């Protein structure tokens, strides 16, 4: 009763302010994206402009937050009547979003053309429990980038095929005095560190979970962390990696301060852009290496999808926008920072031109993409793992102990 009265009162007071947006006949969509990595802000704005030009009755407000804020913003906006209609989500969140009813099930809207045309691996980004919660939009994995000039100066003929070889080559570069610390990673206490770790887990053939219980503390999961710690302690890895995010890695690589760097697709064309980069034309890219006897290449599934939120008042327009953003035409047009989800695009000269090296790496990398665990409690698991990685790197704890503790604190 009291609540009703307060609501009416406050409602009356603020009615003037709230009603204004509804006075227009057109539909306004609010969409949440992330700043940097994959499509740039400018690209997303340009794509959206193209959509609103084709659909003048729909207006789209864009919001960009850092990746670190994407999850919390999406969840917090759930409570607001005027929240987002379209949200970008990472491959690791559909389980949680589906369980907590953040996203709507769009299985019925996925057409046969979509099912046939999109790469099968991309669909795993948006599926949970056999249902579709959106369209894949960014098909991404971490590649091994290298500075061709530095490798040449060091007398290295070909980039490494195994992680062991990566260490050996870095050692040569260091010994020749070309760079003090040749390898750059994003090992900040953030999801970025989990992506690098997952790449290594896939190389060492580890498992995150077995029968729903943590298994990363054994076998490949442990070897992966040990590799990170060894590389850090050997001084071959830039020690500042432990506070880097992807953009810091890019900056270091573009400045010519790293011979090797693990990063997403977007770095390829950015590092070749003379506006920001000092290593234009020297950028090499290959799939992340493997481990002798276990794997040829390694890759993390870093894909992201676009979904319609459960609180959206315009789910149809929202879906129309998503369909446009993920269409083959749009994706081919902006294929410089993020590669399309559509299989046939990879043979389209308009897409591949000027980035043949990247496409070649993508064909191997995307096929090897390894998922992070699918669980509604992913945030807790990831937080526990981030702590384990940092504690091991900083020597506060052995990799074994750190991962065992993480397994205990993972909430699983």
């Amino acid at each position: 009763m009291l609540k009703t009265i307060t609501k009416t009162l406050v409602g009356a007071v603020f009615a003037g302010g709230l009603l204004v947006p509804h006075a227009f006949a057109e539909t306004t969509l609010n969409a949440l994206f992330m700043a940097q990595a994959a499509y740039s802000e400018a690209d997303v704005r340009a794509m959206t402009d193209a959509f609103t030009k084709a659909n003048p009755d729909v207006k789209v407000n864009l919001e960009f937050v850092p990746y670190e804020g994407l999850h919390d913003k999406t969840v917090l906006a759930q409570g607001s009547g005027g929240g987002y209609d379209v949200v970008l989500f990472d491959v690791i969140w559909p389980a949680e979003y589906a369980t907590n009813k953040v996203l709507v099930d769009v299985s019925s809207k996925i057409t046969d053309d979509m099912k046939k045309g999109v790469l099968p691996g991309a669909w795993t980004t948006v599926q949970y429990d056999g249902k579709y919660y959106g369209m894949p939009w960014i098909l991404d994995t971490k590649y091994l980038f290298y500075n061709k000039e530095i490798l040449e100066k060091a007398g290295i003929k070909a980039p490494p095929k195994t992680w062991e070889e990566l260490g050996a080559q870095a050692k040569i570069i260091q010994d020749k005095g070309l760079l003090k610390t040749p390898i750059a990673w994003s090992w900040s206490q953030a999801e970025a560190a989990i992506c690098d770790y997952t790449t290594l887990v896939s190389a060492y053939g580890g498992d995150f979970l077995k029968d729903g219980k943590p298994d990363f503390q054994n076998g490949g999961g442990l070897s992966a962390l040990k590799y990170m710690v060894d590389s850090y302690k050997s001084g071959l890895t830039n020690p500042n990696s432990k506070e880097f995010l992807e953009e810091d890695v890019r900056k270091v690589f573009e400045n010519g301060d790293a011979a090797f760097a693990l990063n997403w697709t977007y770095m390829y064309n950015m590092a070749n852009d003379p506006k920001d980069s000092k290593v234009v034309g020297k950028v090499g890219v290959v799939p992340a290496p493997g481990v002798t006897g276990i794997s040829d290449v390694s890759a993390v599934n870093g894909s992201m999808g676009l979904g319609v939120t459960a609180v959206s008042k315009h789910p149809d327009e929202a879906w129309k926008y998503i369909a446009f953003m993920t269409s083959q035409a749009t994706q081919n047009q902006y294929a410089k920072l993020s590669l399309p989800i559509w299989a046939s695009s990879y043979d389209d000269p308009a897409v591949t031109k000027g980035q043949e090296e990247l496409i070649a790496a993508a064909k191997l990398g995307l096929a090897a993409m390894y998922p992070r665990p699918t669980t509604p409690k992913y945030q807790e698991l990831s937080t526990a793992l981030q702590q384990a990685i940092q504690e091991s790197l900083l020597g506060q704890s052995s990799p074994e102990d750190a991962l065992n503790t993480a397994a205990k604190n993972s909430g699983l």
Partner: protein
Amino acid sequence: MERRSPAFTIFVYVCALLLAAIILAPIAWLFIMSISPAADLAAKPLRWWPQAADFSRYQTLLSTAENSAGAAFTSSLRNSLEIAGMATLAALALAIPAGWAVSRTPAIGWSLSMVIATYMLPPVALAVPLYMGLSHLGLLNNVFGLALVYLTILAPFTTWLMKSGFDSIPREIEAAAMIDGAGLFQTLRIITLPLAAPVMATSALFAVLLAWDEFFYALLFTSDQRAKTLTVAIADLAGGRVSDYGLIATAGVLAALPPVLIGLVMQRALISGLTSGGVKG
């Protein structure tokens, strides 16, 4: 003090220069970063002075072209202004009568003490119910909702300042006016409020500064251009996902400009407010 040895005088000047350097260096660097080309900021060794001043980032951030990075920034600037303005007005509207009442009727002073004691509450202790409440009222991601929440911080402070302001106005003046036949509200309007105008101005400035500075509630309760404030917009930029450090610095300069100008121009009023109790963290 009058008879200072030369050595002591030199010591004083050295210390003064040191203090000036400590205060100014970071602020100067913020401004230099905002006008340095990106390449200079990534140079090793670092280039401390730009080869050519580059003000284009200010243009970028202040442009209002639809769906641009500038539009996002200017809308957060507008939201910050609106929210700080509304919250300040509302806080004063509550604080002036309450401050006067407590000042003239010490018997109810304990109620103000209770209000002020809420300063100890960490915002995290209120955040979850406030979030749910705003959500229920449809006031999440809304400038009115955030202004309402800011009253939790602004109202106790302004009331306290107003109360000490009224304390310094002798009640005999009011009594005299009333004997002359003026009613209570007439007395307040003609005598007390004009005398309290400087305190009201100081309270308003503090309220604006506090609202401008707030981050935690804004981070939780706003999500996009409709209500997001400047502090959240800057934290988004600084989140490690923008590689042009100059752009981050430019946003910082623009956000710092209003409070810094207020601080410099209104210094005397602010310091008197500060010393009457040491406000704002």
